[in-house]
């Protein structure tokens, strides 16, 4: 408090004046002014309230009095207590009646007043212009329908519409059913908007999900009291179409085209039918026409018909006319192939016939063969069927057609052909070759092959005839089979010598079966060829459709029967070989496994796979091994080592006492390491040039002695049991073995020095061994 600075009032006033404030008065101003005010106000309020209360009381009293007076006023008049006995009942009745009447009248008036208020005249005029949302046609005549106001949105401020509830419900259910049945799924046809009529439609996306919200105003609907009759549905649709067409600038055409009538398959009465062609006339024409066409040889055009008076049926269909076509074909063929053609079958038969006539005379055959060849050259088609047929040759003999006599010119064009006269002097090898060719069914060059085959057959038979002459000529060699006659004799010779194995029973069986199969195949082919021939021959005959068909059918039946029969002797030689990914052929078990893996889609696990791979590797090794060697090719490895080192012995392992250090050049493969057998041999002198490489030369020496001592004595040493052979390094236990081989084979001359040392070392080792036998007993 004492620290407070304070100034006096005067000074304060001075400051206040300087600031512009009112100077302070000394007295404490009535600080309760507000409270006083409040009190005053409160008092006033209370006074006012009391005043109001009083006033209200007075007013109530006045109102009460007035009420009473009014009530009393209605009590005027005679009361029931007043004596009214002067009136008798009649009067009273009249009076009461009157009163009633008056009362009734009063009531009536009141009712009428009320009715009038509600019921103002409501006629059609009031309803004019209201919209009804049904089709005019739907409201049938004669039925009374109650129309109610349709539900509409409040805010849209739409016009009022009337509708019949039931009809609206019907419409709705119908629409719903339609939507349910008709699926507006995507069908792939164009959307509605692409049809010509709806060119102005909005592009709809996923139209099937569009909800029908009912926003579109019903096109169908009419107004009450309106004079214009609304268009019917059909009229409306037409109008719409016309508008659409107009928008697209098209004019609608009617598509009623008189000629586009539906045709029935069957002939109607009035139609023009087909005429059956008359055959008799045509026959006469044909003959004449054929002659006429053959005569003008140069004219290749078929259209040029000779001027023969021929009755022509102008209505005939040229394509379907079989006779005509046959005629034309024949003429064509005649022009192209002037000489008579030999089919392959006929040729085969011819050759068979020729073969049977060989004995009759060689020159004749020659000519005939050559003729045959000539025939071949005139364009016969040869395929492996005919060629094989000829090779196998079990065809029955058929009358041979007379060959055309033609000169026998030199056939330079056919190189493989050799004239039969030269056959005897031909080398056997050639013959063998030819026979091989004949045996194979491959067609390299048709003509050449055919001729070769032909020749081969002829030659073989000829040589067979000539053979006894040959043997006699050579002189006393009939006992000894020679090579000069073909493959068969060669094979026989080999068989006798024992080089070729005689076929086992199984093999011979198979051979027999194979032969039968070949026979069957040949039969089949022959049959097929015959059928072809028949078919070709049957074409161009003068039969009509029905007959031709009948014949075809018969032929097919016959073929089927033949097929069936032929399969009775069918002996197929089937052999299925399976190969794996390495190219090996699989045993049945392996094949089954492979198939099973493929079928199930999963193979073996890791172990099985490794096992399999190991087995395959072993097999390979076995195959790779030489016949005189062990499976691990020890001798080969030893030879390799020998070559490299020039030493004819091996140093075996040391055992636990550490590896034998060897120079790298000695090695084919891995170096020796710990864990080897105890046996060890070493040469000292030889080690000298290589002593750098050797570390423990002195140490193992003793062992050497130990090891060596029993060796010469026993001559046989057993290897210790270090079983695992190192690659490229084999252990040869016996020095006995080593020594002779070392003496025998030291192939490397460059290492001569070493070799010498080796020998020397050997002897030294032996001497040392003798020296120190007692050390072993330590």
């Amino acid at each position, binding site marked *: 408090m004492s620290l407070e600075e304070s100034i006096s009032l005067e000074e304060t006033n001075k400051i206040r004046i300087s600031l512009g404030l009112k100077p302070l008065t000394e*007295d404490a101003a009535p600080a309760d002014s507000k409270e006083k005010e409040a009190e005053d106000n409160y008092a006033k309020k209370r006074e006012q309230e009391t005043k109001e209360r009083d006033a209200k009381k007075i007013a109530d009293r006045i109102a009460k009095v007035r009420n009473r007076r009014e009530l009393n006023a209605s009590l005027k008049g005679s009361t029931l207590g007043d004596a009214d006995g002067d009136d008798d009942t009649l009067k009273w009745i009249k009076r009461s009646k009157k009163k009633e009447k008056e009362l009734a009248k009063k009531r009536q008036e009141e009712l009428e007043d009320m009715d009038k208020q509600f019921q103002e005249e409501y006629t059609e005029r009031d309803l004019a212009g209201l919209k009804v949302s049904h089709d005019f046609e739907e409201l049938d005549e004669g039925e009374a329908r109650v129309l109610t106001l349709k539900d509409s949105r409040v805010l849209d401020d739409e016009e009022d519409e009337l509708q019949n509830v039931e009809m609206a419900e019907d419409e709705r259910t119908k629409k719903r059913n339609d939507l349910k049945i008709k699926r507006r799924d995507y069908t792939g046809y164009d959307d509605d908007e692409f049809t010509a009529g709806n060119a102005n439609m909005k592009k709809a996306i996923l139209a099937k999900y569009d909800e029908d919200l009912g926003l579109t105003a019903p096109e169908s609907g009419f107004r009450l009291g309106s004079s214009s009759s609304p268009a019917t549905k059909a009229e409306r649709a037409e109008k719409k179409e016309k508008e659409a067409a107009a928008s697209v600038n098209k004019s609608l055409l009617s598509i009623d085209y008189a000629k586009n009538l539906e045709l029935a398959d069957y002939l109607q009465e009035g139609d023009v039918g087909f005429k059956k062609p008359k055959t008799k006339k045509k026959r006469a024409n044909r003959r004449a026409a054929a002659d006429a066409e053959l005569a003008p040889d140069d004219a290749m055009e078929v259209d040029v018909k000779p001027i023969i008076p021929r009755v022509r049926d102008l209505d005939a269909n040229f394509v379907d006319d079989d006779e005509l076509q046959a005629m034309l074909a024949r003429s064509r063929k005649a022009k192209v192939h002037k000489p008579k053609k030999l089919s392959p079958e006929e040729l085969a038969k011819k050759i068979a016939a020729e073969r049977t006539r060989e004995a009759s005379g060689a020159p004749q055959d020659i000519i005939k063969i050559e003729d045959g060849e000539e025939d071949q050259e005139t364009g016969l088609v040869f395929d492996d069927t005919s060629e094989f047929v000829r090779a196998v040759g079990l065809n029955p003999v058929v009358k041979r057609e007379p060959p055309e006599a033609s000169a026998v010119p030199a056939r330079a064009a056919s190189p493989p052909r050799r004239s039969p006269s030269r056959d005897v002097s031909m080398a056997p090898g050639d013959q063998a070759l030819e026979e091989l060719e004949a045996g194979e069914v491959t067609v390299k060059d048709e003509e050449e092959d055919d001729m070769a085959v032909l020749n081969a057959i002829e030659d073989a038979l000829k040589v067979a005839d000539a053979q006894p002459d040959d043997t006699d000529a050579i002189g006393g060699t009939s006992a000894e089979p020679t090579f000069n006659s073909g493959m068969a004799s060669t094979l026989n010779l080999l068989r006798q010598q024992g080089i070729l194995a005689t076929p086992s029973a199984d093999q011979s069986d198979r051979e027999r079966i194979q032969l039968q199969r070949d026979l069957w195949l040949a039969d089949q082919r022959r049959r097929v060829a015959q059928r072809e021939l028949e078919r070709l021959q049957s074409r161009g005959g003068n039969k009509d459709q029905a007959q031709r068909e009948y014949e075809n059918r018969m032929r097919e039946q016959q073929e089927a029967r033949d097929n069936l029969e032929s399969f009775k002797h069918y002996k197929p030689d089937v052999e299925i070989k399976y190969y794996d990914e390495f190219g090996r052929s699989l045993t049945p078990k392996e094949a089954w496994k492979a198939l099973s893996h493929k079928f199930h889609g999963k193979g073996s696990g890791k172990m099985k796979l490794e096992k399999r791979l190991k087995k395959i590797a072993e097999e390979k090794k076995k195959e790779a091994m030489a016949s005189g060697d062990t499976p691990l090719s020890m001798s080969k490895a030893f030879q390799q080592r020998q070559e490299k080192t020039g030493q004819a012995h091996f140093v075996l392992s040391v055992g636990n006492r550490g590896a034998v250090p060897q120079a790298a050049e000695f090695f084919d493969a891995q170096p020796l390491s710990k864990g080897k057998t105890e046996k060890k041999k070493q040469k000292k002198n030889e080690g000298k040039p290589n002593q750098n490489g050797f570390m423990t030369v002195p140490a193992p020496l003793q062992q050497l002695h130990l090891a060596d001592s029993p060796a010469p004595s026993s001559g046989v040493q057993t290897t210790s049991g270090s079983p695992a052979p190192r690659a490229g390094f084999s252990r040869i236990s016996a020095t006995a073995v080593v020594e002779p081989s070392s003496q025998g084979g030291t192939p490397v001359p460059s290492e001569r020095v070493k070799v010498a040392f080796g020998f020397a070392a050997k002897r030294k080792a032996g001497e040392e061994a003798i020296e120190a036998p007692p050390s072993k007993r330590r």
Partner: protein
Amino acid sequence: MALIEVIANDRLGRKVRVKCSPDDTVGDLKKLIAAQTGTDWTKIQLKKWYTIYKDHITLGDYEINDGMSLEMY
């Protein structure tokens, strides 16, 4: 009208007693304080705990009575 004394305390050693009337505004009060302390009246901030007294309101409306102390910052 009425004379009241208001104490303005600075909490740093400056304590001033000012005579004023309830009709004065806070700004006038600040001027009076400034005249007594010697600072600039615009630099004075009168507070009570976190209530800052605004310049244009009278002391009577703030109900600052006789003998009340205000904090001067």
